[in-house]
Every structure is written in structure tokens, then in C-alpha cells.
């Protein structure tokens, strides 16, 4: 079953201005449910832009993006936010945690939009923390964590809503080799959980991962064979 279908996606920054930049050109991708896909390419090839479109962080200039039979390309903000909330778990290069809050409070963040009871919220948070192997640090402030621990906190936050899709943008760029390998091992967990995963990276360590189903190579905003 197709989880995501991208048809003729274009993204132009500053369209109709002299400094217009064509970041993505005629992108066509189909991703199966549960598939783990690596977007490969050098910096500036358009990986992160494509990932932000898949996650509903920004909208394409043209083209269709069908996710679970819904075209997300032109959703109004309220539906686009709901899409990000329910369907997407993001893992960023710079972790994007809320400094000053504890691990637990960061992981709680997506759940606070729901009407769940505190007991249910705590259960979901604990489950996500256990999967990401960071439960032992739940009371610690994220600013006091190491890079690898911050990454695991970000993974727990991405999983807490149990979304079907995980998007990771250069997830190992700020990690040492050991922690990078731990993240790559995490892909097996994602696979076991049935998540569809798209990782934008140029880290060669990912080539060791057995869980990866497919590589998509990008260059200058285009998919290359």
C-alpha cells in the first residue's frame, strides 16, 4: 500500500522575483507503507526541502502530495497542523528541543494539544521514552544532556503520538560515530513498529544499515537514477 505519492513536485523560492530559486524540479516519488527510504545527496541538493514538504512544514509551488489518500499540497493551516500532529514525527539535525524544559516535558509537547488525561499522557510519554531508551533521564533538563541523549529525546517526541511517518533531517550530523550507529540501529525499531521512514542524509554510515529498503539520490533539486 502506498503511504506517500509525490507527483511532479516543484518548489520555487522567491517566485516571480529576480532572485527566484528553483529548489525542487519535477519530483515524482512513491513510498510504500513501512518502507525505510534514504534521501542521499550533497548539501544544497534539495533533500531537506523535500523533507519539509513531506512533513507539511512548507507547501510546494506546484504538484500533488498524496499521503494516505489525502492531498496535503494545498491544505489550509488548521489541517496542515493536524497532519503534522497526527501523521508525522520529525527528527531534526539540531534536535529542536525546548531548552529549559525536562526530557519528559519536551516529549509531552505534542500530547498537550489533546484532551487526554494526565494518566494517559504519562503512559504515552513513558512508552516513547522506553522505545528511545531515554526514560532514565526523563526528569533532566534537555540543556544538560549529551548530543546522543538529545537525539533520543527528539526520537521519543517524534514517536509519542504514534505517527505512521517518521521524517529525519540529517539526524546524525551532530552526533559522534557511536551515537550515529545507535541512531542507525533505531531504524530497526522503526521498522518493527511499522513506521514509514524517510531520512535525508549524506552520512556514509547509513550504508551499513540493513533496515533500509531504498536510496533516492538527489542533485540540484532533481532525483537522479
Amino acid at each position, binding site marked *: 500500500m502506498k503511504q506517500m505519492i509525490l507527483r511532479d513536485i516543484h518548489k520555487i523560492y522567491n517566485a516571480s522575483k529576480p532572485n527566484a530559486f528553483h529548489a525542487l524540479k519535477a519530483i515524482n516519488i512513491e513510498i510504500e507503507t513501512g518502507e525505510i527510504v534514504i534521501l542521499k545527496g550533497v548539501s544544497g541538493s534539495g533533500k531537506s526541502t523535500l523533507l519539509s514538504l513531506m512533513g507539511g*512544514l512548507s507547501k510546494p509551488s506546484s504538484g500533488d502530495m498524496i499521503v494516505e489518500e489525502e492531498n496535503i499540497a494545498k491544505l489550509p493551516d*488548521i489541517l496542515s497542523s493536524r497532519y503534522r500532529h*497526527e501523521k508525522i514525527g520529525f527528527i531534526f*539535525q539540531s534536535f529542536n528541543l*525546548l531548552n529549559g*524544559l525536562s526530557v519528559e516535558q519536551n516529549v509531552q509537547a505534542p500530547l*498537550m*494539544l489533546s484532551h487526554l488525561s494526565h494518566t494517559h499522557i504519562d503512559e504515552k510519554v513513558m512508552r516513547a521514552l522506553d522505545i528511545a531508551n531515554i526514560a532514565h533521564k526523563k526528569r533532566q533538563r534537555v540543556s544538560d544532556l549529551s548530543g546522543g541523549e538529545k537525539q533520543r529525546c527528539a526520537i521519543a517526541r517524534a514517536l509519542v503520538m504514534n505517527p505512521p511517518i517518521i521524517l529525519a533531517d540529517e539526524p546524525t550530523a551532530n552526533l559522534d560515530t557511536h551515537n550515529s550507529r545507535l541512531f542507525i540501529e533505531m531504524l530497526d525499531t522503526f521498522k518493527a513498529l511499522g513506521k514509514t521512514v524517510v531520512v535525508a542524509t549524506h552520512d556514509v554510515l547509513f550504508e551499513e544499515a540493513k533496515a533500509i529498503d531504498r536510496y533516492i539520490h538527489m542533485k540540484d533539486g532533481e532525483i537522479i537514477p
Partner: protein
Amino acid sequence: MFPKNLSEYAIVLLLKDKADHLFSFLIFTFIVTLLSAVLFVSDAIQSDLKVATLFQPDIVVENTLAGRAYTLSEEDKEAIESLRGVTAVEGAVDGYYYFAQGRVWFHVIGDSSLRLGAMRVGSGVYTAIKAWHYEDQFNFFTPKGKITLNIEQIESKATNLLCNDVIYMHPANARAVLDLGMEHYSKLYVTVPNPNEVGELTLKIVETLPYVKATSKEEILANYQHLFYYKGGVFMILYLVCMVSFLILLKNQISLVYGEKKKEIAILRSIGYGIKDIIAIKFIQNSTVALSAFLSGVGIAYLYVFFFQAPLLRSIFLGSELEHSVEFTPIMDMNMLFLLFIFSVIPFLACVILPSWKIAIADMSEAVR
């Protein structure tokens, strides 16, 4: 109004940045305290003035020439009594006595309800004479010799605003102290039962006796109110200080949103928070700060004015050579407080919510990379 979990999380985020919010809270509280204190003092004074002027005559007639006070005669009194609409004219003995030891002036007023040899004094007078060891009696030194009067009563604090420097005594004693002849009066108090005729009769008195000055009760009250009015003089400087502080506060709020909070908004948006959720969080956080600062400011001002009797501020309002022992009556003008609320809390909220909304609607993909 807002989902419970979202409201709780907004407070968690608020406490995360407590140092930033504490600065806003303190500045906001300071501004509200200052403005509320001025309002409270002013309202209390206006209220006390109303009490103090309740028993004022309808028209006061004085004989003044080039700013100097002269006496009025029995003929003047009879001329006013003959006017239609006037029911009574009372000759008043009123003047100033210089207390050389204390280097202050006392306002001496004749009061026929007091017995000969007795006097009733304002608390400012009592404090001034007590400093020179006068307890139950006081000696007036006149060109004709020493006059000793007994202190029978000290004026109530509610009327102290006007009576602080006043000594009431029997008119015969007052005449002796002020060296005034029996056929002469300092002022004439005119009673006019119909309030609609007061204005016209004030003019008629001046027509009948062109050398006198006639002042209606309303004019007297207006003069006093103007004297203690909070919109003039030094208060404009005070308001200017508040305005500048408030602008600094608003600028700080805007800088916060465009600075570190920009990233926070982008992170929340990336995990599924909608524009309305971001606005709700900012509204909850900043209304918590603004409301608590407003209530604290009003509370502190209330204690400062009505419990501690407004040290420093009272000297600006009640500047006098005698120490004032006015006790402010707790009065609150809810309309003015409501206006203060509207003109402080709403701009404060707007300065956070509008930039937050502007950031929330922007493309967040760059901010979270």
C-alpha cells in the same frame, strides 16, 4: 475557553522563561502601582473634600481690594439680607494668626457653637503647638496682651484636608485674637435655600456691593478640587515616566518574540501546533503576567495609600507648611481602574500576540533546520 492541557503547557513554558517574564512583571507592576496610587490618593482627596465642604455656606462674601482682605460692615450684611432669595446672612470672623515660635500661620475661624475660652484645632495645628509643649491650652500674643484658650477638641481626620491649619474659637475670642471690631466681619456667609438661585444671587451681591467678592459653594469646591487635581503639574511628569517605562516594556516584549521565542514557535509549529494554538499559548502566558502584575500593582497601591498613608506621594498632593495628618478614606474609582486596565493590559498583549501571529504564519522550515 482554552483546552486544559494546552493551558497547563503554556504555564510550563512561561515558567521555563521566568527570568524574562519576571522583568516584564516587575516593570508592569511598578507602572500600575504608581498610576493606581495617584488615582487612589486623588479619589480619596476628592471624597474627603465633599465631606469637608458639606457644611460650607452657599455663598461666601469677602471684601478684597488688590488682593488684600478688608472687613465687611453691619450695613453690608443688611444689604445682602434684603435681597430676595436670601434667607440668612451670618457674619464670620476669620483670619490668620502667626505662631512665631513655630514659624507657621494658623487659620482662626469664629464658631458660635463653642463656648468662650474654648477652641477646636486641626491636627496640624495640634502637632505644631504640641512641639512647643502646649498640651491643653494655647497662648495667643496680641498687641493688647496675651489670650489663653483651652483646647477642647481636635478635628476629625476626615476633615483634615481643609481643617489641618484651622483653629475654631468663639467669635468674641476670634475678634480679640484678630483684633477685629464688634461691628465688623471678615466674611459673610449667605444661605440660599434654592440651589438654582445661587448663581444669580452671587451676581446680585456683587451688583449691590461692587467692592466685594462673592464665591458660590460650587466655585469653592472646584477651586479645592483643582488644587488637588491629579492631571496637572508634577503628575504629568509622573505620567511621562510611566509612559516611557511602558514603552520600554513593550519593546522588551516585542524583542523577546522576535528573538529566542521565534525558534520556540517554529518548534511547536513543526510538531503540530496550529496558529491558533500558538496565539492561545501566548495569550495565556502574557495575560497571566499582565493580570497578576495589574492585580499586584493595584494591591500594592491600595496598601501604600490606605494602609501606609502614601509616604512621599502625600507631600506632592498636600504640600503644606504644617505636617498633614490626613487619613485617606479608602475609595476606588472603578471606571478609572477599568480604563487603566484597558490601556495597559491590551497594548501589552497586542505587543506579544501580533508578532507571534506574524511568526506563526511564516514558513517555519528554515527556522527548524
